[in-house]
Each structure stands twice: as C-alpha cells, then as structure tokens.
C-alpha cells in the first residue's frame, strides 16, 4: 500500500446533474512523475480541484499516504504536503520574486499569525529561498517584482514556490501552457530535476513533455478513466488515439 502515495476510490464530481469526474480510481506511485492527460473538458482540472479540496467530491474517497483525507480542508491538505499549481499562472504578482518563494517557506516558522513581529525575522528564510530560486534558474531575478517577469519565468517561479512547501506530492496543472519552445524545454527539465525525492502528478497537453518525463500516464475522457500505463502503452492504445491523440495508428500506417 505504501507504494502508492495517493489513491482515490470511486472519486466522482457532479455539477447539477453533469458528471465532470466519474468514478475515478487513481493510483499514484511514490517517486513517479505521473501525467494526467485527456481531451479538453475531460475533468483533469476538476480532478485536481477535488484532490486539493477546492471542490468537494460528490462521492468517493481520497487517501494520502494511506490516510483518508476526504474530509479535510484545502489548507490542511496543503499542510500535509500536497501542493498544487494552477492552470492559469498563479503567482503573487506584486510581491518580489523572493517574497513569493518566502510565502511558501514562511509557514514552517509557525509565525504566520504574528502580526507584532518584524519581517526581519523572515530573513532567515532568504538563503533557502535563493537556493530554490537557483534551482529554477531565477536567482538573478530575486528582487524583481513578479509582474515584470516573462510568462515562462512566472511558471518557473510558481514551481519554486511550490517546492518551498517541501511537498511530498506536487500537483502541476499544465506547467508548460502558454510557453515558447525554450521555456517548455526548460520547465520540462526543471520538473525532471525537482522530481527527485518527490512525487509529481501533472496535467499536460504537450505530448513531447509527457513522453520525455512521465513515468506513468492516466488518460481521462469525459470524466472517466480511459486508460493507464506507460507512454508507450498508452500512446498505442487505440481508444486513446481515438479520444485524445486525434488519429488512429491504422490511419497513419495506411498512409505510409
């Protein structure tokens, strides 16, 4: 059991009669980069929202490290070490890059409610923050106000902030969305790099990224699990080709 860091049982979410996530049994193995793919509207983001309790499941249960976390609040889940990023870039735009990461680090001090303390007490976190920024290649940008960063850098910052939480499990929603070639490659490499000692569950449309780094892939379609396996297995699955990859092998082979 401890092989799986995260499992769901019959996870279901309905919106007014419309089932966005349908009886999903997901198993994420510790240490894996696990990709969740599927057509638009398949329920990937909804799935993430359920896992982090931004939405309350209609049915089903969620286990993290074998503990049932279905009833917990978002902040509690975050404190357990399940940290997510957002599909639309989610940084604190008017904080400096360093401060962004520090917000992530700050909770470990346990002084988050201390309104009487000076923020000089936060300086002790700077070294670690810079280290994290270094990991994502943002060290030189530390004092910049975040709005001024190019888009790709913001996504990198988001990952750094997420790392600051020392997550056991990172949920990344389309980390390469809206990026140019170089950014995509950089972020892909970054994810690979930070995955050491962690588990990552990510939603990604870019098959090249998925192919390069994903250890395991789950394919959702219309809320339900369609297929699961390694990239090779999944990409050869005709149902997946049909539903997601857009064409079937046969067609293209016929064209050869």
């Amino acid at each position, binding site marked *: 059991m401890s092989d799986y860091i995260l499992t769901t049982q019959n996870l279901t979410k309905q919106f007014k009669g419309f089932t966005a996530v349908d009886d999903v049994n997901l198993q994420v193995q510790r240490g894996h980069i696990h990709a969740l793919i599927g057509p638009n509207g398949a329920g990937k983001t909804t799935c993430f929202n359920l896992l982090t309790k931004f939405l309350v499941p209609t049915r089903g249960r969620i286990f993290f490290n074998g503990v049932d976390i279905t009833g917990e609040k978002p902040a509690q889940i975050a404190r357990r070490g399940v940290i997510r990023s*957002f599909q639309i870039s989610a940084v604190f735009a008017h904080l400096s890059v360093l401060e962004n990461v520090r*917000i992530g680090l700050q909770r470990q001090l346990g002084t*988050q409610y201390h309104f009487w303390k000076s923020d000089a007490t936060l300086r002790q976190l700077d070294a670690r923050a810079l280290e994290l920024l270094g990991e994502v290649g943002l060290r030189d940008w530390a004092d910049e106000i975040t709005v001024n960063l190019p888009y790709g850098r913001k996504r990198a910052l988001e990952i750094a902030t997420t790392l600051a939480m020392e997550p056991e499990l990172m949920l990344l929603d389309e980390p390469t969305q809206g990026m140019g070639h170089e950014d995509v490659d950089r972020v892909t490499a970054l994810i690979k790099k930070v995955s050491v000692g962690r588990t990552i569950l990510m939603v990604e449309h870019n098959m090249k990224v998925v192919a390069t780094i994903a250890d395991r892939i789950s394919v959702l379609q219309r809320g339900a699990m369609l297929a699961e396996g390694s990239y090779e297995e999944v990409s050869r699955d005709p149902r997946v080709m049909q539903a997601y990859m857009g064409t079937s092998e046969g067609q293209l082979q016929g064209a050869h």
Partner: protein
Amino acid sequence: MRQSLSLLGYLALLLVLVAAPFMGAYPIFMMKLFCMALFACAFNLLFGYTGMLSFGHAAFLGGAGYITGHALKVWGVPPEVGLLLGTAFGAFLGLVVGYLAIKRQGIYFTMITLALAQMLYFLWLQAPFTGGEDGLQGVPRGTLLGFIDLRSDLTMYYVCLAIVAAAFLFIMRVVHSPFGHVLHAIKENEPRATSLGYDTNRFKLLVFVLSAALSGLAGALKTLVLGFATLTDVHWTMSGHAVLMTLVGGMGTMAGPLVGALVVVAIENKVGEWGHWMANLTSIDWFRSLGESVTIVTGFIFVICVLLFRRGIVGEVLHFLGRRGKRPGA
C-alpha cells in the same frame, strides 16, 4: 535603503508635528486630523493591504466613541481605561461583523458590512445613553495615568500625537510582519495562498479585528479629545469617508491615508473659504455656494479618483518616482 529613506521622512514629519503647535497649528484641529488619519490607516490595513472593502467601519469608530464617552463620563474611569475599553469594543464588534461578512467575498462582503453597520446605527440611535441626536456631550478628559492632566489642549495634543504615532508604527509593523506578508499574498491571489496551506479566512478575520480595534482606538481618542460622541461617527457616510480618505491618499500605501485624511478633513472645513476665494478670483458667483455643497465636492472627488487617479495622491507620486522601485508600502 528605500525603507530607511521613508523612515527618515516619517521622522521629519513627526518632528514637524511636535513643533506644529508653536507654528500656529490648531491643536484641536490637528488632533481631529490625527484621529481621522488613524481611522483611515486602520481602514487601509484592511482595504489597501488585504483587498477587503469594508463599508461599515463607522460602526467601529463611532461605537468605540460612545463606549469610551460613556465610560469616562458616567463610570468615571481614567482616560487610559476609556481608550482601552473603546479599542476592545471596536475589536469585539469587528469580530462579530467580520465573522459574518467574510462568509461572502467581493462586493457582497462590502454590502454586508454596510448593512450590519446600518443596523448598529439604529441601535446606537435608540440606545438611551447615546443621547440620540444631542449626542453624548460633556465627556471629561481626566488625568492620564494619574498624573498627566489632559485638560490642557497642548498636553492632550502630545498625548494624542504619541498614541497615533504609536498606532501608526503598529500598523506599519503589522504590514511588514510575517502576518502582513501572508495578507499581501492573500490580497494578490487568495486561492494560491490557500494552496500554500494558509487558512485564509482566519487571516481575514484577524486583520478585520485588528482594523476594527484600531478604528475603535481612533474613535475613542476622538471622543476624548473633543469631549463628545455623536451619531455622525456611526453613520454610513463616515464609512464612506474612510474609503474616500484612503482612495484619495492612495490605498495600499502607508502615507496615503495620512494625506487622504488631510485632504478630506480640509475639504470639510475649508471648502467654503475656497469657494469664496474662487468666486473672487473668477467672479463666478456660483462658487460662493460651494461651502454648502460639500457632498457634491465629495462625490466629484470619488468619481475623479475612480476614473482617473486610482492610485491616489501618494500612489501616483510613488509611481512617478520609482517605476522600477520596490513595491509601494515603503
């Protein structure tokens, strides 16, 4: 560097204020200004730094004023106890109103605070000890800590200055505390803050209570200084004043509410004179009636601020000074 520069600025301001009574400034006017400035700063802590627009802050200002006034006048408590009672009462009201209001966000939050404050207004009006329209009059200043006689305006002035300066430093500290950093994060992106493990509702409630307590202190001090507490301070237009002062000065800046308070209080007191001056200058007689049109002028400023100067005076200056500087707040 920048921070120390602005600290120097505040120090200079403090020196000027210490010397002000000897340079012909009116102690009472200045003290009222301090109280309003503190009120605006307290409001700004919530609106400017956490992004929550409360339209019920008059309830804390005026409510605390009544409690302090009653305690000083009827129970005969010393001023320091009166001020503490007022502050505590503000905090208590803040807890109740805040608890209800943070159940909704954005515009609903605003409407709820407004409605609850209006309810409290009716309660104050009906409560026998507030004196209704007459107000609670003749509140004695008493002797602070048993040896500082506050009856002299000058003594009161320095006590008031000390309290407001301390409160200002406190707000500054809150903004730049670990707590303040999380608040800023919540303002920027609440879902993201939640996903980083912060229980945002507790932060919002705590800052609401802090803001209400400080507003309460402002109200308590105002009653102590002026010797009366009236319905004006619990009416929703006073909440509107808090918004206006912050908006004019520049929300989310430390100095903004100070400047805003100066502008708004000055308008209230001087617009008539300016009107006469304008009338003499332009020989347009209409300006003479400006003194009777404070609400029109106020409304006009609101419109202009929203459409053209959303950053406010201080915000625009900071923006102009350092486009690539650190974030405003310094």
